[in-house]
């Protein structure tokens, strides 16, 4: 019996951040990710982009925050995947969102598959993916 009821179609509360050098520099500092396109607008433009862009791994972190905060200590992440469709541009508000797409009862709890994604303010998906969780408490 789980205390976290979960059903197909459930929406996960969004995790949102205004992103720019303040966020990217902190992530670079812990992940040792000092790549010019994440630090320098000119390097971003030289790569065919509009300027510097955020790290893909920071999108991954936001998606993990989304799922982990929703689980709230009542389950764990079994599997995660995402791809990077569009870059995270400077001063963009990035929203990590998700919804439950499948639920399976297991002997040790409930396994749920989530469609997850990050999106810009217009709803364009930057990093779509899936996450499988086990809810067991």
């Amino acid at each position, binding site marked *: 019996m789980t205390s976290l009821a979960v059903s197909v179609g459930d929406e996960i509360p969004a995790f949102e951040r205004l992103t720019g050098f303040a966020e990217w520099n902190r992530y670079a500092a812990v992940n040792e990710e000092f790549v010019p396109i994440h630090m320098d607008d000119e390097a971003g433009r030289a790569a065919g982009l509009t300027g510097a862009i955020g790290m893909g791994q920071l999108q991954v972190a936001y998606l993990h925050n989304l799922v982990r905060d929703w689980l709230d200590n009542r389950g764990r992440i079994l599997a*995660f*995947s995402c791809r990077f469709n569009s870059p995270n541009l400077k001063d963009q508000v990035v929203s990590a969102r998700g919804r439950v797409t499948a639920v399976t009862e297991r002997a040790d709890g409930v396994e749920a598959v989530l469609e997850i994604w990050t999106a810009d303010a217009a709803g364009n998906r930057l990093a779509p993916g899936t996450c499988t969780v086990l809810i067991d408490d």
Partner: protein
Amino acid sequence: MSELAEQVTTRVSAEMRAALGREMKRAVSYPVSESDIRRWAIAVYYPAQPPRRFWDADVAAASRYGGIVAPEDFNPFAWMTAEPAGVSPMASAASDPDSLEASVGVAGPGLKNVLNGGLQIDYGVPIRPGDVITSVTSLAEYRERSGSLGLMLFTTSRTLWTNQHGETVKTGLGTVIRY
């Protein structure tokens, strides 16, 4: 120049294809500290305060893990590893698009730009303070596709992380896109 670019049908040399399956990198972390975990949580939750379970031992003790554990996306290999010792030369070369092939001893495709194409991870046990993590990465696959930026090369690597008890922390596939 554009005519030449249009005639390129592959960026994958025979030497690169022969390197598939080869080990690219093996690293052993220093013991993970609570401070490492705190700083990671601060960075990925910034500007909000990170959840207390990542920095308050009493709150963490009441969690399902009975103590502080790292966020799943935590990287214990940043800045310096115990093995290979010292600052990794790969860290300074991280923006070199040919660094993947350099790690398996072959010439790269010579492309100019690199983007993160995505990843796929299966999780095992969590990382706890004091854990020593070993990572082994191998070259798994080359794929190519024409896109708006020309012929794009997708390179996938496979990574296994284990802790000091031999338990699997995670297995992962990562893809970089070069063009």
